[in-house]
């Protein structure tokens, strides 16, 4: 009963602290969903595509930009001259440009930005490409001159990428979490795991953006994506993750589906170095064994254009080589026999997480098997993929999309992961660098494509489609982009007068909750010390501390042996080893393990869980944010499970042996057997997609008000509660049956109470002990056990946080969160022990089990 009162109090405190703040406005805010969350918001360090998608062109701008056709256009530089020898570029800068924080933009800023990118400590992914710049000369405040070490016809393209944006010395240090640029939007808030919000920059140098606010939400789950766009919770997906449901969205007149081309080539990467695969005949056999059309149908539901080389079909220099190796199993077998493998061979296929790769991989494996190539599939996380395939070249085959534009240069790197080396190809690349006119470039690019295809370097599957799904009213939205960017300066909604959702703001929800809990814990401890004596408390505390210490050693140990380098993960595909090394140093990953363990332990004693590698924000602060979702979810689920389970159990106990009892107990058996993630999927099918009563997922934040927040938690907490309710019903029943058999129950009946009255007044309180035990065991489980549920409903809670941290190798976060969860278990067990004594006075003598 006390527990119930405590929960009630907490809920009331929450309700008061978080009064609804809903406001209506015309539709001038846009919510875009991205599949991946950016690890940080600094496009000049690290290679994460989502970072560019959020900030490039919106917050940050460079000297030049690429238009939809991939041509270089002026931006912060109005025009430029290239010296005849190609070694000097002079840029004339735009007047009146200011950063969002008021800092001025001039030639000095350009010099600062470019020198920062190529500095020794820089983690810029294009550092190597930009290092062709020998010197940046400030001619006058509006003119800057770049002196090159050698000719480089790619320089202007590199300057148009997110890695080369202009940053101000005033704000450069904090770009990862507080980006400041010259673009049409300014950074507003970032609710990690959920959304980044930008607002219009009214001081923009050009025509201001038409949207007042843009929110980027992060939804990778295909089912969640479908629900979110179908219910208009998000207005746009630039990269819709579920081609399988696109046909349904096409049929919806309120949505617009656009399939556009991208610069991404999906390839079956072949490790050219190892054994049989070093033989071009084996590689050609693989090409003949593959049936691209079936792969595109099966994996992409028909979306995607077949390619025959590493080059996008929409490019003017594209040569169609898809007919070079027609699907021909007999030919493949013949080639294998010729190469000395008449009985076929066995290969491993290591696949990264995205659906396109996993599905293509399964189909490709089946096709290769037809030709006698036995393929063993290994599904990897990105960090493992980067480590094994990309870093250590420990693979035979892989499938991955290469999304960088004009990236054929990777075939000229012998140490690149697929390990292709050809003097002929190198010669072509050298000629290309010297090429001055477009015609000549086109010819050489054609030869490059043919060379790669002839050598059957990789299995070329299809051009990755950009599947955009948009609110039909959305206008001037740039889709066909040659860079990884979502440029929103011109985007707007055609229609008017549609009320908007509430404006999301980072709020104090987690902090308030934390404060309330801390206060409650302190008061509780004082009360316990007063009641049970300090010795007993000290003894229990010693056991707790020892358990926690042992747990911390185990966690730290496990974390140490996890393969995969966080620095490599953050820097992505084109990172140099030096950049990775300097990042590792910054992240404190160097040094002896014992020393790092002690530092971590000491930090925890101060409440310092370290700084997240990916978010570059204190872990404690991130955890506090997530607890604001997970704790209410767990509490809600617990309350629900008791409210549903206890009366059912009581009913069964009261009707023991009768039909009602049998039916109820049968149902609870089914309830226990249902995996909660499956139940969650069923709930979404019925209540979100079918009836549309509640949203299919996401969390609006407590700032949006109590009702929307609770509504968002309704289905997840029900999914979590259902199997628990079944357990509680069973425990309640058996506990009640036990107490009903006691003599004093007969006495209660004898003194004139009805069976029901006796049950409620005397039976239930005595049945509380086993119930409390189960609740105590459940609570930490609910807190952490939401991992999968939080993923189904894309809630930004602790479970999803730790899962994401594991895949991103943000190990300091994993350490901290797991430790916290262990602490929750240990602390709850302690509280249960106390509760025993409080609920059952008979235990006061023995105190313990």
């Amino acid at each position, binding site marked *: 009963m006390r527990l119930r009162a405590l929960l009630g109090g907490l809920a009331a405190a929450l309700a008061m602290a978080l009064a609804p703040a809903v406001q209506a406005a015309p539709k001038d805010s846009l919510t875009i969903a991205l599949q991946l969350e950016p690890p940080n918001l600094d496009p000049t360090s690290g290679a994460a595509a989502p970072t560019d998608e959020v900030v490039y062109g919106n917050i940050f701008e460079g000297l030049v930009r690429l238009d939809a056709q991939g041509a270089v256009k002026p931006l912060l530089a109005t025009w430029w001259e290239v010296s005849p020898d190609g070694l000097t570029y002079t840029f004339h800068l735009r007047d009146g440009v200011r950063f969002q924080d008021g800092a001025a933009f001039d030639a000095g800023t350009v010099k600062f930005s470019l020198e920062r990118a190529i500095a020794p400590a820089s983690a810029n992914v294009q550092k190597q490409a930009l290092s062709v710049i020998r010197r940046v000369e400030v001619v006058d405040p509006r003119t800057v001159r770049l002196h090159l070490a050698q000719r480089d016809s790619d320089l202007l393209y590199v300057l148009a990428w997110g890695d080369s944006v202009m940053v101000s010395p005033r704000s450069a240090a904090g770009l990862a979490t507080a980006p400041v640029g010259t673009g049409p939007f300014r950074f507003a808030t970032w609710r990690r795991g959920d959304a980044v919000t930008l607002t219009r920059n009214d001081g923009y140098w050009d025509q201001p953006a038409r949207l007042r606010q843009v929110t980027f939400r992060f939804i990778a789950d295909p089912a969640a994506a479908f629900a979110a766009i179908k219910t208009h919770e998000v207005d746009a997906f630039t990269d819709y993750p579920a081609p399988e449901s696109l046909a349904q969205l096409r049929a919806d007149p309120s949505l617009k589906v656009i399939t556009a081309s991208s610069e991404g080539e999906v390839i079956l990467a072949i490790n050219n170095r190892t054994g049989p695969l070093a033989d071009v005949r084996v590689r050609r056999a693989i090409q003949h064994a593959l049936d691209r059309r079936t792969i595109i149908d099966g994996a992409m539901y028909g979306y995607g254009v077949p390619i025959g080389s590493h080059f996008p079909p929409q490019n003017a220099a594209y040569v169609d080589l898809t007919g070079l190796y027609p699907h021909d199993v007999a030919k493949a077998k013949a080639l294998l026999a010729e190469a000395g493998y008449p009985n076929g061979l066995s290969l491993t296929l290591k696949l990264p997480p995205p659906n396109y790769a996993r599905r293509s991989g399964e189909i490709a494996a089946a096709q290769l098997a037809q030709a006698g190539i036995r393929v063993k599939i290994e599904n990897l996380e990105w960090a493992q993929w980067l480590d094994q395939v990309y870093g250590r070249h420990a693979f035979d085959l892989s499938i991955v999309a290469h999304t960088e534009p004009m990236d054929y240069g990777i075939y000229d790197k012998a140490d690149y992961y697929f390990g292709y080396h050809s003097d002929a190809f190198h010669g072509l690349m050298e000629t290309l660098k010297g090429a001055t006119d477009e015609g000549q470039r086109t010819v050489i690019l054609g030869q490059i494509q043919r060379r790669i295809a002839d050598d059957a370097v990789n299995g070329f599957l299809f051009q990755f489609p950009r599947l955009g799904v948009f609110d039909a009213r959305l206008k001037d939205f740039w889709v066909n982009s040659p860079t990884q960017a979502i440029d929103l300066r011109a985007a707007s909604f055609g229609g008017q007068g549609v009320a908007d959702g509430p404006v999301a703001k980072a709020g104090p929800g987690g902090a308030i909750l934390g404060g309330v809990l801390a206060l409650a814990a302190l008061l509780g401890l004082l009360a316990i010390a007063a009641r049970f004596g300090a010795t007993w408390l000290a003894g229990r505390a010693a056991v707790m501390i020892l358990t926690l210490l042992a747990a911390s050693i185990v966690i730290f140990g496990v974390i140490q042996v996890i393969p995969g380098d966080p620095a490599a993960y953050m820097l992505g595909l084109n990172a140099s080893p030096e950049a990775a090394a300097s990042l590792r140093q910054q992240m404190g990953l160097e040094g002896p393990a014992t020393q790092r363990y002690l530092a971590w332990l000491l930090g925890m004693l101060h409440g310092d869980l370290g700084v997240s590698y990916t978010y570059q924000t204190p872990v404690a602060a991130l955890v506090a944010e997530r607890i604001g979702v997970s704790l209410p979810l767990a509490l809600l689920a617990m309350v629900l499970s008791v409210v549903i389970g206890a009366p059912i159990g009581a009913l069964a106990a009261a009707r023991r042996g009768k039909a009602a009892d049998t039916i109820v107990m049968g149902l609870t058996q089914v309830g226990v*057997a249902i995996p909660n993630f*499956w139940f969650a999927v069923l709930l979404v099918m019925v209540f979100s997609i079918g009836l549309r009563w509640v949203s299919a997922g996401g969390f609006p934040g407590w700032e949006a008000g109590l009702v929307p927040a609770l509504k968002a938690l309704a289905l997840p907490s029900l999914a979590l509660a259902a199997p628990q309710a079944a357990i509680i019903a069973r425990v309640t029943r058996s506990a009640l049956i036990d107490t009903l058999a006691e003599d004093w129950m007969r006495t209660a009946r004898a003194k004139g109470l009805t069976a029901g009255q006796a049950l409620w007044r005397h039976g239930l309180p005595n049945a509380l002990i086993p119930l409390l035990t189960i609740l105590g065991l459940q609570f930490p489980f609910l807190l952490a056990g939401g991992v999968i549920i939080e993923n189904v409903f894309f809630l930004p809670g602790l479970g999803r946080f730790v899962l994401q941290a594991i895949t991103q190798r943000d190990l300091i976060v994993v350490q901290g969160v797991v430790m916290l969860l262990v602490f929750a278990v240990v602390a709850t067990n302690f509280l249960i022990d106390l509760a025993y004594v409080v609920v059952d006075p008979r235990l006061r003598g023995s105190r313990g089990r």
Partner: protein
Amino acid sequence: MSRARLSPALVVGAAISVVFVASALLSLVWTPYDVAAFDIGHRLEGPTAAHWLGRDHFGRDVASMILLGAGNALAVSLVAVLLGAGLGVPLGLLAAARRGLIDELVMRASDVAFAFPALILAILLTAVLGPGAINAVVAIGIFNVPVFARLTRGAALSLWTRDYVLAARMTGKGAARISLEHILPGLASVLIVQATLQFSLGVIAEAGLSYVGLGAQPPAASWGKMLADAQTLVSVAPLQAIFPGLAIVVTVLGLNLLGDGLRDRFDPRLDEER
């Protein structure tokens, strides 16, 4: 309660369990269709006379996939239970026989193990070991160890006070021999019940791990992976999410009923002994 009468729960549970094991064994030698052959053109077709449960997103026969999934679930959970019991039971026997420091160590270690969020640690373990059925077995099996250790210790402690054990001690038998000859047989019923329940938990855990992509790797079939594949298709082909889910629920239900039924059957004797 009459010992001779079988409870309906036990009968139903045993029947389901037998069907489950039989289909798992059957899938080793025969499935209605060859699931290695993809047929993209006929994908996501509903149930027909030829394909009772329809076809999946690659055009494979769902019924065949579910049979193979049973094989996977059986193998993973069974080995995980054997692993847990194989390590946990000796630890529990040892703790009960030696008491003192060893007992304390075993119990505290199991406290620590219980304190860990199992699923998260399992995910961490597969991050270390790499995904795959064998590593899923290890991740699930590790959490079975403390369960069996505690159960064995608790039950063994009470047996150590029994007269026939005392008598055995009088004859000069060592602790190890008594544990094996007199304690372990007495624990059989408790352990069988617990093994059945851990088995059903293993089926759910395996489904969960496969669902997040850490269990059996394709082309091996797993109910959890089938659910994960189906989830993206919920709006297009909802039936895809129904059948593997039902397979899990029915199997787990059967194993739980079997475990509970066995417990009820063994219980009277346990009560006498307490």
